[in-house]
């Protein structure tokens, strides 16, 4: 335990500027490390009391983060870059990514009714969409600049479906996805768990793809705040990272810890969903509602020896390449320069060292995505232009809806 060192730290000159931190979260399985840190005594040793505030939608969370109602929040990775660049929200605001909170664990789901008609693979979906008599399918994601929009677009495009021409998309807050599916207002959606698993549990939906099948160990949620908050409260930010790193490590220490985490977060004050919809996928046990079951090699991760938490520059840059690809950005931004400003590498490294968490030497990482393309952060502008299906601004302007 590091508790004794931490106490000395609290009373020293590194004492946090704030003793209360207001933390926003969305009801999702991947918010677990915030809930565990706030309720299980991970922040007190650092002189912090964490107040959790559940948010009704991503745009509400974003607005509360900008007005200072929230000091920091469980955030969609790409939403933070959208705010930095002034896309689909208020004017550009300097933002700070303090650490990664979660990788993997989102899913693309289709209604059970469509599946029953034989639309139960990506190929069948592409065929169905190309039939002239078929009205366009309505597929939901969670925010125009959110990760779910980008995973959905990436997956559809990799399967030959143009996400902005061949289907209609809509924005729905995660906890309302299942109800909209039940009411037949949407045909499918991309969302974080447990809202995919819950549709299967109710017999309303099937999972066509997990997001880890698009990019194994993809970046997903981050702990973010405004740059102003991080600059004015560096000790608080560091203490917050320490508390969350230690909570993340605790969750993954054993299967028992994962199970009790699932119990905790299922509570009505947190994710407010049955534990049966949360626990299996948290443990990597997947069923897709089409009779297939598997143990996923890249399930939702909170820690993975710190690999999840490192704010890699290349992770931040990837989301900007997709904004460019889909026309949300009309010009190439300074990919690397912006990522260097947003990703708080030195705050993270100091906190990780204090908590005894391994810090990778590289600030870029390499991955092969499901269409075979390699992303390593080296040529972001070229990468953004390398896709056969796209909506680059010179080709078509994508309305921000």
């Amino acid at each position, binding site marked *: *335990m590091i508790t004794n060192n931490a106490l000395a730290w609290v009373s020293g000159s590194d004492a946090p500027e*704030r*003793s*209360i931190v207001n933390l926003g979260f969305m009801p999702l399985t991947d918010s677990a490390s915030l809930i*565990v840190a706030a*309720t*299980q*005594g991970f922040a*007190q*040793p650092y*002189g*912090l*009391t964490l107040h959790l505030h559940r948010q009704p939608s991503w745009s509400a969370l974003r607005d509360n983060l900008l007005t200072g109602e929230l000091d920091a929040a469980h955030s969609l990775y790409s939403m933070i870059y959208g705010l930095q660049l002034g896309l689909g929200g208020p004017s550009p605001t300097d933002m700070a990514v303090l650490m990664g909170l979660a990788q993997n664990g989102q899913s693309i789901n289709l209604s059970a009714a469509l599946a029953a008609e034989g639309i139960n693979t990506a190929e069948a979906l592409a065929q169905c969409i190309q039939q002239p008599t078929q009205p366009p399918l309505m597929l939901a994601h969670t925010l125009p600049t959110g990760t779910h929009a980008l995973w959905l677009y990436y997956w559809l495009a990799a399967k030959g479906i143009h996400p902005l021409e061949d289907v209609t998309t809509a924005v729905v807050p995660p906890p309302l996805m299942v109800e909209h599916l039940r009411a037949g207002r949407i045909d499918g959606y991309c969302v974080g768990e447990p809202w995919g698993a819950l549709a299967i549990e109710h017999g309303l939906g099937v999972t066509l793809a997990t997001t880890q099948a698009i990019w194994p160990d993809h970046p997903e949620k981050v702990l973010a705040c405004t740059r102003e908050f991080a600059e004015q409260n560096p000790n608080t930010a560091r203490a917050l990272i320490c508390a969350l790193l230690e909570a993340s490590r*605790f969750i993954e*220490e054993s299967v*028992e*810890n994962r199970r*009790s*985490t699932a*119990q*905790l977060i*299922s*509570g009505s*004050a947190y994710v407010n969903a049955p534990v049966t919809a949360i626990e299996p996928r948290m443990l990597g046990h997947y069923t897709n509602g089409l009779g297939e079951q598997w143990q996923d090699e890249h399930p939702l991760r909170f820690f993975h020896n710190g690999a999840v938490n490192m704010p890699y520059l290349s992770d931040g840059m990837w989301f900007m390449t997709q904004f460019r690809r889909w026309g949300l950005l009309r010009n190439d931004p300074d990919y690397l320069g912006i990522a260097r400003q947003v990703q708080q590498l030195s705050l993270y490294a100091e906190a990780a060292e204090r908590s005894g968490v391994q810090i990778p030497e590289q600030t870029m990482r390499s991955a092969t995505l499901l269409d075979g393309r390699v992303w390593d952060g080296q040529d972001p502008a070229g990468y953004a232009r390398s896709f056969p299906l796209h909506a680059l601004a010179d080709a078509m302007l994508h309305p921000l809806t």
Partner: protein
Amino acid sequence: MRILLIDDTPKKVGRLKAALLEAGFDVIEESGLTIDLPARIEAIRPDVILFDTQSPSRDVMDQVCLVTRDRPRPIVMFTDEHDPDVMRQAIQSGVSAYIVEGIHAQRLQPILDVAMARFETDQALRAQLQAREQQLAERKRIELAKGMLMKMRDCNEEQAYTLMRRQAMSKQQKLIQVAEQVISMNELLGL
């Protein structure tokens, strides 16, 4: 800005009320019957509470401070005293600012602004201090429970923490709640 003017010294209030109205404030006047003051404050929700130092008893202010503890308001005192000690005392007991009698209407706004700003800062600081005290108190209780559990289960520090956390999480409780349960059980069993 809505001001609750507690009026039990009529000779001054007449002028002050006129000055406040002239300055464009929304003034609600309460005569000396302070018996239902808490309920009135709750109903009126004033931005500032204004009262006189010579009010029949200082109990009024104490009562106001006490009853608005959960939803405090800035309290401004008006006075014709110039004794700095009295003012210092008043400010220590929760008054945000004071107005010297006979002041011009146009000078009220900045005084009230200062009172409100000071009040907000005080509130924030008080909340931070309270949180810090509570953190220390909770840490001590958790440490105590951890020590008890280490003896009972013959385990190390980290295992004791993990046991308490797992128990708390499975019951959707906070660590401090389980720590208190461990302490109670320990006392009950006389371990």
